[in-house]
């Protein structure tokens, strides 16, 4: 498993401000400029960020918790990975506002008034929290897919056992060698095998495996 690589340099990134008033934007823009981050859009009181155009590797949204961001259609879907990292700007430190930011997907916070000394930490936490979340989501998705595929694996093992009179370990080994040869996952291979239900094909496969076993 590869270790998650943390982002440490934000040069070339683009910031999108969704702020209640312009107050925080000057300090934030100055601090971001030092870090090589350009402010791409600033919207006050309305969220005019165009979601489909956001790219997680380039954009960062600074979302003010005091803005009413319960838009229709919703700007961010509660509990879902947002299209780009979100750093919450906290004015009213009340549970309802913080909950709103968490639901929007914020992975870091900056307290109002924004203090320049906290901006790098917020970027670092916000971006890397987002990357970790994205990494976990993709790993969970991959596992779910494999879990769904286990049914086909069991079926394929039974097929090979039934057709060739081998035990389950041998049947599994046969399938494993075949999927590696075909360069697909075991689950995908078994799914296509079971899907075709071509008994002949399974027989051929086992015969060729037996030949290669004898040849060793």
């Amino acid at each position, binding site marked *: 498993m590869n*270790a998650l*690589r*943390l982002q440490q*340099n934000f040069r070339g990134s683009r910031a999108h401000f969704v702020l209640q008033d312009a107050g925080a934007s000057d300090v934030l823009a100055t601090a971001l400029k*030092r870090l090589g981050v350009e402010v791409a859009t600033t919207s006050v009181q309305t969220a005019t960020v165009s979601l489909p155009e956001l790219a997680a590797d380039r954009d960062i949204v600074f979302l003010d918790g005091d803005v009413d961001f319960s838009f229709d259609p919703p700007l961010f879907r509660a509990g879902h990975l947002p299209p780009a990292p979100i750093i919450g700007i906290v004015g009213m430190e009340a549970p309802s506002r913080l909950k709103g930011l968490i639901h929007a997907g914020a992975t870091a916070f900056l307290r109002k008034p924004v203090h*320049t*000394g906290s901006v*790098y930490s917020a970027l670092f936490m916000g971006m890397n929290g987002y990357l970790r979340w994205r990494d976990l989501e993709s790993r969970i998705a991959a596992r779910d897919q494999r879990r769904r595929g286990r049914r086909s694996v069991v079926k394929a093992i039974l097929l090979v056992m039934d057709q060739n009179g081998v035990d389950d370990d041998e049947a599994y080994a046969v399938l494993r060698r075949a999927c590696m040869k075909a360069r697909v996952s075991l689950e995908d291979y078994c799914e296509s095998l079971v899907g075709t239900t071509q008994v002949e094909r399974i027989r051929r496969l086992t015969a060729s495996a037996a030949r290669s076993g004898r040849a060793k």
Partner: protein
Amino acid sequence: MAPKCYRVGLLFSTSGPYSVVAQSMLNGALLALEQVNAEPEAGVRLEPVMGDPGGVNAEYARLAREMLNDGIRHVVGCYTSSSRKEVIPFFEKHDALLWYPSHYEGFEASANVVYTGAAPNQHILPLTRYLIEEYGKHAFCVGSNYIWAWENNRILRETLLANDGEVIAERYLPVGETDFDPLIEKIVDARPSFVFNTLIGTSAYHFFRTFRAACEKRGIEQAREIPVASCSLSEPELEEIGPDAVDGHLSSSVYFSTIDSAANARFIEAYRARFPAGPTMSADAEATFIAVRLLSDALRSAGSDAIDPVREAVGGAAITAPQGRVSIDRDSRHAYLTPRIGRSNGRARFDIILESSRPVRPDPYLIESAPRYTLVARRPNLRIVS
């Protein structure tokens, strides 16, 4: 019209584990301050208010608070980053300015600090490039256990990894530690291309002596075979190391007393005449001298010691310093400085072996050079499975 008089805090640990460097910094400050007071054209008079925190962080906090509560708005001082981080909240609270005159590890740009020492792109990066080219890619890191060492080692490790090199080991010891025997055994056994040293003060001087002696005992020509490279080693520290182990050490610095220029000759002469008892000139003393000169220029053009006009005046300000032209970057309030690499000689001075052709823009967050993502040590792509 009589020049306006301002009180300036000078916060240097002239006692404690890094007193030698701090004393040379205080000397640099006093030299600049006295020059300003003697020049009618300077247009200001500076009255020093001194404090010695003895290298204790809590004392830095106490003395800084006292100075600021007393109405002082500008303090020149601090050497270690831990002491600087300790006092910055007070400067922010009182909206005062700290003039921080030492090389440091970067990743900071407080609105209440002017940084006249070297940023990491002006010390560790040129040193790493030089070490890779001249000595190899296998480093052994030894440092005092605080942010200066951690962060420099991280930058070194990332640069080495990007060049297919490695950090064999990183060892940290408490500030002031002097027992190095087990560590030196490990270094000699590991045979790195070089040792990267971020020890400070007395720990560093002990390390240089013990390491040289241990190598000699084993027939290793230390300076040539396992050189020690530092970003903080200065002339007064070479004198502390002593004659048996003083030569052959590499140091990356924006100032060496051996710089051949008229401005430096004047500086050295004035410093020697004023402080015949020493300690010898150091890069941090020059950075402190620069800080006080820039402060007096900014106070004159601002016409007051209020923070906003002084901050405005210092952004873009430039002087001809002993190292060459030095100016302040408006965005980060760090200095454009000229990186150099020196090798120490038997006279406790540095022979300059490499010099940047022009002042280098400060990049405290390394946005121009750091890889976007952190690098992780490469493991072999193939592994034995049965």
